[in-house]
């Protein structure tokens, strides 16, 4: 058996474990996913909207927040202008009688959130991105999930309405899959991100935990890991739909995902040490090991891919040059396919993944086109290259927002 075969077996073992893990969770919990929680009391919430150069979207977001179905006397909307250089502040100013506006020098989203947190007066804080629109009951549905005191955060069901370009359609499919897997992970308290479009936190606990990490590129991932590491819970309100804007070009998508991936690495390195501790916390037993394996296999996978691709190119180029040089007419083309253990593993994984994708899409009214679904594996494949690029950037210590 060649070393490559051994690596393929290892990759299969890990990928299939994670796929089966989600499948089992789905089989066991599919009835609970869309289960409605009865409405309880609606506590007071401060909505924090950090905004940096959001002149194109901030007005819609403010208008949307003013219309949500939540008792107005229990709601405080705070827009934090993080040193915008465009018309964000002027637009926001039009609503100063209905919302609170804070202004500060630009220092990043986490810093803006912490600034807003210092000025929030309510028991709960909801973080809403400046390019996000909430469904009427989204916040209400999130609040219903705070059933126990040790639930520190509740996330929402993020989708996008942009579905014109292929890259947007692919992100839309990805969001639906993420929503399902995130909800499934709730069962084991494994929700590893409280995303920016809409997440609600218990303010006091968030402050006690040290607020958002201003040195991390993905403060929403880091805070989630910190919440879990401290033994608290994160829930997801599957019926709390929010619509956010996602990159509409490959370049912007690449930049955004690179930032997320570098932030993921920052978070991983921050919590790497916990792996040597002796506790049963999910960050130590699941999130850190899975992240390590993910990055390691991404590196190995990329190395194999480049090795095979370069080998293929060199061999075939040399073969072609030599055959042309020797005046050969018959070309040797190895197009043989033989059934082997990897074909079987591949088929099993493909079917399992299809089941999960089908389950994810079946909970949504909007249909995804077949062509987008066919291209989707390529999208996931491309994402691996983002990870490789991020590792390279991370090693080179080139951080920054990478987005305009």
């Amino acid at each position, binding site marked *: 058996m060649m070393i490559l075969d051994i690596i393929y077996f290892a990759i299969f073992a890990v990928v299939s474990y*994670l796929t089966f893990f989600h499948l089992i969770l789905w089989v066991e919990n599919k009835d609970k996913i869309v289960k409605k929680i009865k409405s309880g009391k609606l506590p007071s919430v401060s909505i924090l909207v950090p905004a940096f150069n959001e002149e194109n979207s901030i007005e819609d977001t403010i208008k949307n927040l003013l219309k949500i179905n939540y008792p107005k006397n229990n709601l405080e909307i705070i827009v934090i202008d993080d040193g915008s250089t465009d018309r964000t502040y002027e637009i926001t100013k039009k609503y100063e009688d209905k919302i609170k506006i804070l202004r500060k020098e630009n220092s990043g989203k986490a810093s803006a959130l912490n600034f807003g947190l210092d000025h929030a007066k309510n028991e709960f804080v909801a973080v809403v991105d400046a390019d996000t629109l909430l469904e009427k009951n989204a916040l209400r549905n999130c609040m219903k999930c705070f059933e126990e005191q040790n639930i520190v955060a509740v996330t929402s069901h993020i989708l996008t309405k942009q579905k014109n370009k292929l890259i947007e359609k692919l992100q839309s499919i990805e969001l639906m899959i993420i929503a399902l897997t995130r909800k499934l992970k709730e069962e084991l308290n494994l929700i590893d991100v409280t995303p920016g479009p809409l997440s609600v936190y218990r303010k006091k606990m968030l402050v006690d935990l040290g607020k958002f990490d201003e040195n991390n590129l993905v403060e929403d991932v880091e805070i989630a890991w910190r919440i879990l590491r401290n033994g608290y819970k994160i829930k997801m309100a599957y019926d709390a739909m929010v619509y956010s804007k996602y990159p509409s070009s490959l370049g912007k998508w690449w930049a955004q995902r690179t930032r997320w991936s570098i932030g993921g690495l920052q978070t991983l390195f921050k919590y790497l040490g916990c792996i040597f501790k002796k506790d049963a916390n999910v960050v130590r037993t699941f999130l850190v090991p899975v992240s390590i394996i993910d990055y390691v296999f991404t590196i190995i996978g990329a190395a194999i891919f480049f090795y095979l691709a370069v080998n293929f190119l060199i061999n075939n180029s040399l073969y072609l040059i030599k055959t042309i040089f020797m005046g050969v007419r018959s070309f040797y083309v190895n197009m043989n396919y033989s059934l082997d253990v990897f074909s079987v593993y591949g088929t*099993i994984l493909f079917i399992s993944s299809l089941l999960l994708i089908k389950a994810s899409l079946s909970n949504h009214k909007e249909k995804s086109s077949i062509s987008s679904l066919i291209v989707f594996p390529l999208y996931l494949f491309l994402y691996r290259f983002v990870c490789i690029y991020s590792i390279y950037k991370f090693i080179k210590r080139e951080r920054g927002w990478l987005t305009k």
Partner: protein
Amino acid sequence: MNTYYKAGILTVIVFILGIIFGIWVDNYRLSAVRETLSEIDTNWNDARLLNLYIGRLGKDYCDLALEENLVYNDKIYKEGLEIERTVEANIFIPTLEQERRRYTLLQTQFWFNSQELKEKCNFTYKNVVHLYKQKDLTREIDIENKVQSSILLDLKEKCGNKIMLIPLAADLDLTVIDAVTKQFNITIYPAIIIDEKFAFQGLTSIDELESVVQCI
């Protein structure tokens, strides 16, 4: 039992079933190769006996023997490809060293039989033996092997039944092949021996081969 263990057990089950299936498929392919080799062996004995028969009872059956030889040549060439495919596809039983040796011996037997038949029946076809290395291949040798095979396929297309194409692996520790390489002082591969008289070493062009084969 929690989900972590359930997923682990399911993974182990699928993993083991996959390996069992993989071994079964490898064995199945290996059995198919062995079965075909046995069939070729029988064909070889048939051809050999026909050759003996011609030696004793005259040349009336020369055309039949030639026909048999050509069928055999085609069959054994295809089987060679099948062995290579099996070697490439098999994961748990990948080398097939014995089958390769057996195959090379059958090819060698065919070569010798072809020489004998040619002499007895005064046939004018040429035996074109392609000696190649298959172990510890460098990129250069691997590509040259493939290019040489392509050149020989071109030659076969041009010459048809006027040549017998016999590929032989030269690095399987077979005494008979070692004797052949020693006789023709072959040190560079791929090498071509035409009609047991001319030996080319290294990549040989179709023009060079045609100048000796002269099939047109």
